[in-house]
């Protein structure tokens, strides 16, 4: 299922980013960890319950202004879906 554009993704209980001082930046989850870089880090940093999916898309389209906007949107939706399957996100309306 595709995330709802107006929902607010937030890291699920037990999932958090490691500290800013720790490299590489990593999403820590129960029994798993995901190394983040570039766009994946930009996305996960915004999964704080304060940004809608739509706002995340707009932000990243600005940061990656050379990329095709529709492609950026599709990549973000795909990545959020993957994190949801990992049970790393909750979506609040």
């Amino acid at each position, binding site marked *: *299922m595709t995330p709802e554009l107006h929902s607010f993704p937030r890291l699920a209980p037990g999932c958090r980013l*490691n500290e800013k001082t720790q490299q590489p930046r990593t999403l820590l989850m129960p029994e798993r*960890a995901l190394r983040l870089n570039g766009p994946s880090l930009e996305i996960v940093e915004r999964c704080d319950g304060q940004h809608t999916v739509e706002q995340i898309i707009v932000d990243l389209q600005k940061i990656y202004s050379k990329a095709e906007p529709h492609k950026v949107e599709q990549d973000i939706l795909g990545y959020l879906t993957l994190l949801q399957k990992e*049970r790393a996100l909750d979506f609040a309306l």
Partner: protein
Amino acid sequence: MTSTIPNPLSLIAELTHRCPLHCVYCSNPLELQSRTKELTTEVWSRVFKEAAEAGVLQADFTGGEPLARPDIVELVRAARSAGLYVNLITSGLPLDEAKLAALVDAGLDHIQLSFQGAREETANEISGTKSHAQKLRVLDWLKRHRVAVTLNFVIHRRNIDQLEEMLAFAGSSCATRIEFANVQYYGWAFANRENLLPTRVQLDQSLTLIKREQERLQGRIRVEYVVPDYYAKYPKPCMGGWGRKLMLITPNGDALPCHAAQVIPGLTFENVMDRSLCEIWEQSATFQKFRGEAWMQEPCKTCDRRELDFGGCRCQALLLARDAAATDPVCSLSPLHSKVDAILAGINTATSAQIFAQPSWLYRPNPV
């Protein structure tokens, strides 16, 4: 050995062997370590720092029962401030609500709460103690304190037919993850294997059910299922490969590549009191012993799967083939696979009355 040793990702901190439960499949060694030899708070705190420096991301606090340590809150705080993700693997028995609040405040990231069954009678029989009612109270507190929780059910012949009940139970709790782990046959479980191994029919039914439930619960509860490797075609990549991802520290500070490594004769285990974690990981003979491929025999040596499963489990090779460097006999390619087939045949040709006869369990005691 090449110079490109991967760094460890997980530290399994076996804080104590003391435990209020006496589970018949306990992963602790048959020879339990006594309280008087346990590492101090200070030494554990140093170990957590060294682990983080070596690249470890997660610390799994286990035991025995890790809550049996009176300094558990300090240990959680030390691991978290070292930069680790802190997971507490517990029966929940010695927990009360104030202790839980203190653990959360100290930076606990996640709790893995073990269940011995969905029904009180099964659970109490397997754990050799009355434990089920307390676990239900713990679940309530976890929900109230918004703690991330995985329910862990250890699966075997006597509860594998209760998976649906366990799922319903988990679905009504605050858990976001359920782990159904079939018993792995080492230590106490190896001694009780005749009464724990499920039948082929039971296993097949469980696989169908799990697949359906994984789809139904996707995005809400993550359902993991670990099959009993005696029934698998290929062995599991035990510990993600010897000395590749995980490091286990016993209550007295011995560094092990896996829970059961002490069954392998001839290995010596270095202690964190004598050397740093990083030195042990990179240089100790025991961690080098089965790292990479040089130790492999045929058929592993030339097998296409050798980088997927690393020849399976060294301890299982020792237990079943009497040779820790042999191909894990659960592998269908192993020349000794007939040993596993014979064990399974014994169970799958027995009558239901024989299979479910009241066993005389070998219960795990407490260390002296």
